[in-house]
């Protein structure tokens, strides 16, 4: 068996991302403290926790937007800490969806989605265009391809952001609180898109507090607080019997804020 693979109950699971003992500081402040976890292919991992817990930073360490101070990040069997100049190449194997969308405002929707394949993967223009339109079709934004980001609603922008990530055919998609900046009525369309992707067995790592989504599709949930992993397990584990005191407190606060997590659970039957 190659690195990153193990057999469980006869079924081979490939580990796409392996994080071991990751540490990252900003100046003197330790933001990520010794985080380790694995991500299996075709699964959705949800990371949640109070704000400032280092979740966004952790995500950015995974695709090496930030360089970790210590620890290892493996993409399949490649040690990303050691690839040096080729990091841009490997980074393109990750897709990232941002809380504030970060669409390229001076380009049309189509150009936004096309630019990755064209400039980074050096795919010829026509082929890149075809790929882009396919991605946009998937997020149901194909009709808007000649509009500019400033003409779109938040939910539409985020869906284009997802299309932009998809167009690169990534191994893993990283979501950094994709719905946190959206008005409530727009959250649904984005979650639906993410749900579709999960059902297609895309490997996803999501930082979010959308518990309904987590309960529906996550195979593992990780609770982080103050930069470290506090508790991890399946969604059932968290919603029926969390162990740690801090976890319990956070979940109950979430329930207060957002209403009982069951009631937001539009997706529970879809599993």
């Amino acid at each position, binding site marked *: 068996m190659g690195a990153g693979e193990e057999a469980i109950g006869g079924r081979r699971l490939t580990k796409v991302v392996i994080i071991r003992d990751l540490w990252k500081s900003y100046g003197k402040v330790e933001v990520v403290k010794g985080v380790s976890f694995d991500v299996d292919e075709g699964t959705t991992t949800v990371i949640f926790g109070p704000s400032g817990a280092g979740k966004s930073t952790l995500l950015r360490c995974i695709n090496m937007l930030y360089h970790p101070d210590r620890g290892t990040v493996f993409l399949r069997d490649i040690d990303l800490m050691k690839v040096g100049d080729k990091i841009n190449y490997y980074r393109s194997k990750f897709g990232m969806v941002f809380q*504030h969308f970060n669409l390229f405002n001076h380009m049309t929707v189509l150009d936004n989605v096309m630019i990755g394949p064209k400039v980074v993967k050096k795919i010829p223009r026509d082929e890149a265009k075809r790929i882009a339109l396919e991605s946009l079709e998937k997020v149901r934004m194909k009709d808007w391809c000649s509009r500019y980001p400033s003409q779109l609603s938040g939910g539409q922008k985020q869906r284009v952001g997802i299309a932009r990530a998809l167009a690169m055919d990534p191994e893993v998609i990283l979501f950094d609180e994709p719905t946190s900046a959206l008005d409530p009525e727009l959250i649904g369309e984005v979650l639906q898109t993410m749900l579709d992707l999960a059902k297609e067995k895309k490997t996803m790592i999501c930082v979010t507090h959308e518990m309904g989504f987590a309960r529906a599709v996550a195979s593992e949930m990780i609770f982080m607080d103050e930069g470290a992993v506090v508790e991890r397990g399946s969604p059932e584990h968290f919603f029926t019997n969390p162990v740690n005191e801090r976890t319990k407190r956070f979940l109950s606060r979430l329930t207060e804020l957002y209403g009982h997590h069951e009631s937001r659970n539009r997706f529970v039957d879809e599993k």
Partner: protein
Amino acid sequence: MSSLFDVLLSQFTFIIEGLPVTLSLTAYGLGLGFLIGLPLAILRVYGGRRGRLFVAAYERAMRSVPPLVLIFLFYFGIQTTVFEIPGFLAVMLALGLCSSGYQSQIFRGALESVGSGQMDAARSLGMSRLQAIRLVIAPQALRFALPSWANELATMIKDTSLAFVVGVAELMRRADYVRAATFDPVIPFLVVAGIYFVIVFPITRIAGTWGREKKRLVAGV
């Protein structure tokens, strides 16, 4: 006995011949300022701490020194030490350096307006920093910079009037010729003021409109 109109007309036709020189001085000066200013702005925003400090000091210096001093410095300074420098070149260097200080500031503000998320998004696709700057950051920054840059253009046109002290035959100098030749102290300068105004005013107007549009754009981000 020539009428006032004839006087004005003859003065005007003489003075206006300086316009091409004024415009080419503007172009070269602004161009030099751009070639120095833009890289410095990129250095300041994306370079390390030392880059930031250097550019900050440079900006400060170039904005504090009067253009007239720089013109004399280049014209007389170089003439007596290195070679016979034409007035045009001296003015172009002087105004170009002064402008580079302002343009560096303008582009820095514009680059910062673009926001770090854009760089993150570009790099998350696998772009190198250089690619990101070229394809994503700079195009947006230039749009943000436009109103202030148009202002700088207007300022440059006005500053070229200083070139007359080193004998460059632009608008101001020709106006001064007329004064010296006709002993008419005021009308030539009123004429040249009119010419400058007709050129500069539309530019500042457009800059103002772009400025208001930009405020709307930024708010909608």
